[in-house]
């Protein structure tokens, strides 16, 4: 579907995803420079901007990692341009070192730093609340509640950032970034800026204390602007309320819906706060005086809750006693994603209301039928995925080796190596590049009796992002392990974004491709390249490399992501099962392909007691023909496509 966010149609209402709304907000604010590293739920912000970059004459790049993204964007700011950097919550940890210094030096052109947090860890290894960064770096924080808010806030965040001379953080969450909603467009910025660095000044953190003092003055200025911000509002009875809800993000919409479901709109006030750091204290004080009972609603950490409680401690002599409900009181869980029902039950508990969404009989019947009938659905590599084949070879090589070897994992689709789809080969996963760093450590434990071989697996994009420093560390410190780079030619997990090894940049230009093998060779290690689909040869290669007991060995397993392959050229084979040859469950097979290899394209036919191919799912990679002990899975060249 064609991207509409570049349309210059003021007042038109479009169906936009939160991330598109953020991108549109930046365009309306006159952003010139956009940079990002892919990570769900943030990736579509950059994808959207990149898709209109050429037409609207803005610069858009996929950076090698989040820190570099912010550094590059800062250059634009120092030269007087507006810049936006977007990332998922993990990226905030990566940028933090630079950011805490940048906040002291201050900026020129407005910089908006977007973090898309992932409550519930829907597409993440954690559900970190990245709002902490606003307090650590002493910079303002805005939190939209829905896509329209996201557009409006992003646009305003640039003005705010430029007015006070600080980076401004916009915090989205999955339920905004990946939600489509009605969004009314404003006008695109017509302002043209010229980039120039003013050499009469210098931008740095010295003298530190003085700069820190100035930073707090900037925060005070932000606070002043927040006092009258239209992103903060109150709805509900003007007085005599039983409870005041203070909500930010989508929690505001959940609270509003919960009040309607419980018919409480006449008894409970709802305070929406969009400017969550620094707190608009006077505005808050006015509302805190409305009522003695306060409920906080926000996703993941009690950020607002703690800060408002701390602020209230200062003004309590004036206002008297308050009872606070929220994560601290146990009415809202301090983990997992919010939803309207959590709010409904919290309110019902506080206000002693009996609530049932549907009659008990129906609910009981539904629960009974589902528990009787519905099997769980586990995650799996796509049909044709090179990672399934790679982990198959890794598994076999480690088994053959028989020294209890294991895989130190990393971030990407191949993280799923922790599950049966990757034959449970991956034994630890943490942050980008950390699998390599940890392998570097395991590789030095041999003097303590550690005699297990270690394989570190890292994807191509992750290798560029954070895999190089730990690899250099391992080489320098003579650590002993096998580094396998699973090169599928894309940042697949987040939607096939290009990276330095792909030869394409964010806007689709052909650029120099950085060859991973050459980079590793230049670091002085031996490098081999294997094809994951050649499972026998590749397993033999892995085994052989495991026997070499000195230093880092690098094996690049190179094969294009199956989804990309399917889209671009398709697969060469039509696969079928020769029923005569298939021995199914009997001794000699025991459903090896369906039970052990577990590609979703292979189906165990309960009635025939044979394997068959699911023609809707099978893509025709042909790898399974290699594993059948009876040669019953047959592949034929498919001339159809």
């Amino acid at each position, binding site marked *: 579907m064609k991207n509409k966010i570049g349309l210059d149609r003021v007042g038109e209402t479009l169906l936009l995803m939160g991330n598109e709304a953020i991108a549109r907000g930046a365009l309306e604010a006159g952003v010139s420079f956009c940079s990002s590293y892919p990570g769900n739920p943030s990736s579509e912000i950059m994808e959207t901007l990149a898709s209109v970059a050429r037409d609207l004459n803005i610069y858009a790049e996929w950076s090698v990692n989040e820190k570099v993204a912010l550094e590059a964007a800062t250059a634009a700011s120092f030269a007087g341009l507006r810049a936006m950097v977007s990332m998922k919550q993990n990226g905030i940890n990566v940028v933090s070192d630079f950011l805490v210094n940048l906040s002291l030096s201050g900026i020129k052109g407005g910089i908006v730093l977007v973090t898309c947090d992932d409550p519930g860890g829907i*597409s993440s290894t954690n559900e970190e609340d990245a709002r902490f960064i606003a307090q650590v770096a002493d910079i303002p924080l805005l939190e939209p509640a829905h896509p329209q808010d996201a557009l409006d806030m992003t646009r305003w965040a640039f003005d705010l950032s430029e007015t006070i001379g600080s980076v401004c953080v916009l915090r989205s969450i999955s339920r905004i970034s990946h939600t489509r909603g009605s969004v009314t467009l404003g006008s695109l910025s017509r302002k043209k800026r010229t980039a120039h660095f003013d050499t009469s000044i210098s931008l740095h953190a010295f003298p530190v204390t003085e700069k820190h003092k100035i930073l707090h003055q900037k925060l005070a200025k932000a606070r002043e602007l927040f006092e009258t911000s239209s992103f903060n509002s109150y709805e509900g009875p003007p007085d005599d309320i039983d409870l005041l809800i203070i909500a930010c993000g989508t929690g505001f919409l959940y609270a509003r819906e919960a009040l309607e479901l419980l018919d409480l709109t006449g008894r409970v006030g709802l305070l929406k706060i969009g400017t969550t750091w620094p707190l608009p204290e006077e505005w808050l004080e006015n509302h805190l005086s409305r009522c003695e009972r306060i409920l906080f609603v926000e996703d993941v950490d009690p950020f607002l809750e703690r800060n408002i409680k701390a602020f209230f401690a200062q003004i309590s002599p004036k206002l008297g006693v308050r009872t606070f409900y929220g994560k601290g009181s146990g009415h809202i869980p301090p983990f997992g994603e919010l939803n309207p029902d959590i709010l409904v039950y919290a309110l019902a508990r506080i206000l002693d209301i009996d609530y049932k*969404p549907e009659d008990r009989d129906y609910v009981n019947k539904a629960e009974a039928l589902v528990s009787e009938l*519905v099997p769980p659905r586990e995650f799996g590599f796509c049909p044709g995925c090179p990672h399934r084949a790679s982990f198959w070879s890794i598994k076999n090589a480690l088994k053959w080796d028989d020294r209890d070897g294991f895989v130190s994992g990393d971030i990407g689709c191949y993280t799923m190596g922790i599950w049966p789809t990757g034959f449970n080969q991956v034994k630890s996963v943490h942050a980008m590049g950390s699998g390599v760093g940890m392998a570097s450590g395991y590789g030095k434990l041999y003097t303590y009796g550690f005699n297990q071989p270690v394989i570190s697996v890292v994807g191509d994009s992750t290798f560029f992002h954070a895999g190089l420093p730990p690899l250099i560390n391992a080489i320098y410190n003579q650590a002993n392990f096998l580094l396998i780079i699973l090169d599928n030619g894309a940042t697949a997990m987040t939607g096939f974004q290009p990276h330095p090894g792909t030869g394409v940049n964010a806007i689709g230009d052909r650029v120099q491709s950085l060859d991973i093998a050459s980079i590793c060779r230049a670091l002085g290690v031996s490098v081999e390249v294997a094809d994951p689909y050649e499972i026998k040869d590749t397993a033999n290669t892995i085994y052989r490399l495991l026997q070499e007991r000195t230093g880092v060995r690098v094996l690049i397993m190179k094969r294009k992501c199956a989804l990309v392959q399917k889209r671009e050229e398709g697969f060469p084979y039509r696969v079928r099962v020769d029923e005569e040859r298939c021995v199914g469950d009997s001794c000699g097979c025991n459903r090896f392909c369906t039970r052990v290899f577990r590609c979703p394209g292979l189906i165990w036919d309960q009635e025939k007691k044979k394997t068959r191919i699911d023609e809707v799912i099978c893509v025709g990679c042909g790898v399974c023909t290699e594993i059948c002990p009876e040669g019953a899975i047959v592949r034929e060249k498919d001339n159809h496509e």
Partner: protein
Amino acid sequence: MNSDPLNLIITGVGGQGNVLASRIIGECLIKKGLRVTIGETYGLSQRGGSVMSHVRISEKGTPGPIIPRCKAHVIVSLEPIEALRTVKIYGNRNITMIVNSRPVYPLGVIAGEITYPEPAKVRKALEELSLKLFWIPATEIAIRLGHAIMSNVVLLGALAATGLIPLERKDLLEVLPEVVPSSSKELNVTALDLGMEAVAITI
């Protein structure tokens, strides 16, 4: 609309075209001046897991991205057991369900560790839990057209035919060309009509 917001859920398995279906509906409705919120759950779910879109339609406000428990009006499911999984949380006595009869087997089923329930049992359970069930061989229809992936468009046709949400054939015809490649436009319209037909027969 009988309710505001009107709550529709589209569910299925990653890769079935769930998100595209919800987006087509959203584009249709927004063209009619309605306000729409579509909350989508994906991420890792794309890799064989369950996916779900909450489509909420309003004449006035901004609905939240998550439908409260038991408050869905219509569930469209691209896969039988995903329909059951969803109705357990969001269903009620008055719900209508439009369900593709073709299973996508979970890996555990493929591996023979767990069993997939008999389709007849799933259908009966769904009938028991809904006011009205449309059990549609959408994938089979789509395979006949040569593209299994078009099962989502078949179900969109079915949804339009029920008249349960303000979505008509002409709305879909307007939006489809923006979404599908021009080469497959005609096939998609056929898929849409076959979906509508399937519902007409059932009614």
